[in-house]
């Protein structure tokens, strides 16, 4: 119910506003998400406009039920020595972990955990189930994480990425642990599988 309502309101906004918050992404549509990655939408999504994304480093943010409920984040090109995301709160950005060329996948997983702890000011973030996964036709990785955010909301995440050509490319899906995470999990996996390098 909530999904329909949210997307309906997105479409309404789309038709009314000149500077819209969301852009509809319809099922089957191929869309560039950052530098050199294109994905095909599975199910209907809404892309959050640049100026409403907040944290720096996110090349695209999609949502089904609104960004406060679920977010699909794309990081298309993280360079060595850089954090993959930065908070709007500069104090938090001091000493953010960085991705570096030569990291093993367990290192990347720990880097993501340490970053989420800071950027989301979460007392607890625990990643698990690290496994190999092909992403963008390259050997990559996937893992899940559980996060208790500052709000004490229990959030679950799925991370899929690859370290290829001297950069880290990654997508993160975030949603409340109860109900919403599993609701769109399969769709997110299908979108990850559709990801291709180059822009359409």
């Amino acid at each position, binding site marked *: 119910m909530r999904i329909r309502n949210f997307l309906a309101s997105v479409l309404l906004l789309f038709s009314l506003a000149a500077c819209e918050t969301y852009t509809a992404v319809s099922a089957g549509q191929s869309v560039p998400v950052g530098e050199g990655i294109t994905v095909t939408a599975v199910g209907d999504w809404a892309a959050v406009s640049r100026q409403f994304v907040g944290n720096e480093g996110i090349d695209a943010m999609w949502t089904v039920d609104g960004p406060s409920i679920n977010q699909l984040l794309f990081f298309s090109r993280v360079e060595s020595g850089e954090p993959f995301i930065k908070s709007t709160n500069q*104090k*938090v950005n*001091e*000493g953010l*972990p960085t991705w*570096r060329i*030569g*990291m*093993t*996948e*367990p*290192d990347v*997983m*720990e880097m993501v*955990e*340490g970053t989420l*702890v*800071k950027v989301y*000011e979460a*007392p*607890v*973030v*625990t990643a*698990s*189930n*690290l*496994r*190999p996964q092909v992403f963008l036709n390259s050997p990559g*990785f996937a893992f899940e994480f559980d996060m*208790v955010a*500052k*709000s*004490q*909301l*229990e959030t679950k995440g799925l991370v899929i990425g690859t370290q290829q050509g001297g950069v880290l490319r990654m997508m993160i899906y975030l949603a409340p642990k109860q109900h919403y995470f599993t609701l769109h999990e399969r769709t997110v996996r299908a979108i990850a599988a559709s990801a291709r390098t180059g822009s359409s």
Partner: protein
Amino acid sequence: MDFTRRHLLCGCAATALTGCVSQGGGGQIRAGYAPSLDSAEGGLWEIFNKAEADLKFSPLRMTDEELNRYVTDIACRLAGKHCTDMRVYLMRTPFFNATMAPNGMMQVWSGLLLRCQNEAQLAAVLGHEIGHYLKRHSLQRFEQMRDNSSVAAFLGIAIAAAGGGALANLPGLVAIANIFAFSREQEREADGVGLELMVNAGYEPVQAAEIWRGLIAERDAGLTLEERQDQKQQRDVFFASHPAPADRAQALALQAAAYPGGKRIVGEDRYLAQARAFRDTMMQDELRLHQYDRTLVIIERMKTANPGDADPFYYEGEVYRARNDGIDSGRAMNAYGRALELDETHGLSWRGIGILHRRAGKQEKAAAAFRQYLELVPDAEDRLMIQSYVGA
């Protein structure tokens, strides 16, 4: 930086910027006491009873029965006839903190459990918090506030927090705990009561000072002499009305020495036996904060407490592997090696060694270490990834 520095010495230990407090609150509480509902104290308790109802369902609560029983039993031995008037809640939050609410709701954070070297140190913290309860320090603070306009602000925060919405949120919990940040005199009084309770329950009181020494070492870790002076000065301004950690350690040590000697409980082994099952998780939470110099202080103190224990060496390896600065991989390799000397079945150390070799491009050595890891930890949660490295 500020976030963590601030949290290190927070809690009732040293949070607020409050002035002095007058005597009041009606003195020591009697066992089984509950204030009448129409009194100011009754209203105060009611706010915290509601907060407690929510706290019970916090996702941060550590619910392991055995660990809860262990900590509650210590609290009970200290509290004696007041045992049933208090409830201890263990919260998974990687900072040093413990709080006591006026209704007997006590919170102990996992960052504190990680830092205690033995049962006596945990007893010291619990005893101190019980001291706040017995002396009704919250009520004193409340009565003092009722004399001025801050009571309105207080009630605003407390009621909003107890109302559920805001309480569901960690800063809310901290705010509600900190509103009762105690005065210097109250802290001293709680320290005194804590020592007394420790000794009555058979614990070694000197250990109370040792916790503060650890926190001072952490505060100063990785800082130059000059920075340490700055840090001290900043603290002195910030905690203007509170005993400085160094003074506190000294005062506690002096008071402890005044008790007659004798065979008293320190309980390194007992504490380790209980904490061991949770220490990996607590240490991982700590490592994610990337405050490496301070984490190394915690680890050194673990080594001192339990010299034959392999885990602290493994944790040391994890710190250096994560920091990965200059010669850190060499340091990490040594630390993992030491852990394996102490315990050849320490599979996680093999994992660390494997990662270091793989980073360095030594695939064969990496594979050999990872094989050891998988053999020793067959249900490793990253098994699929590691297997892909081994080529199995």
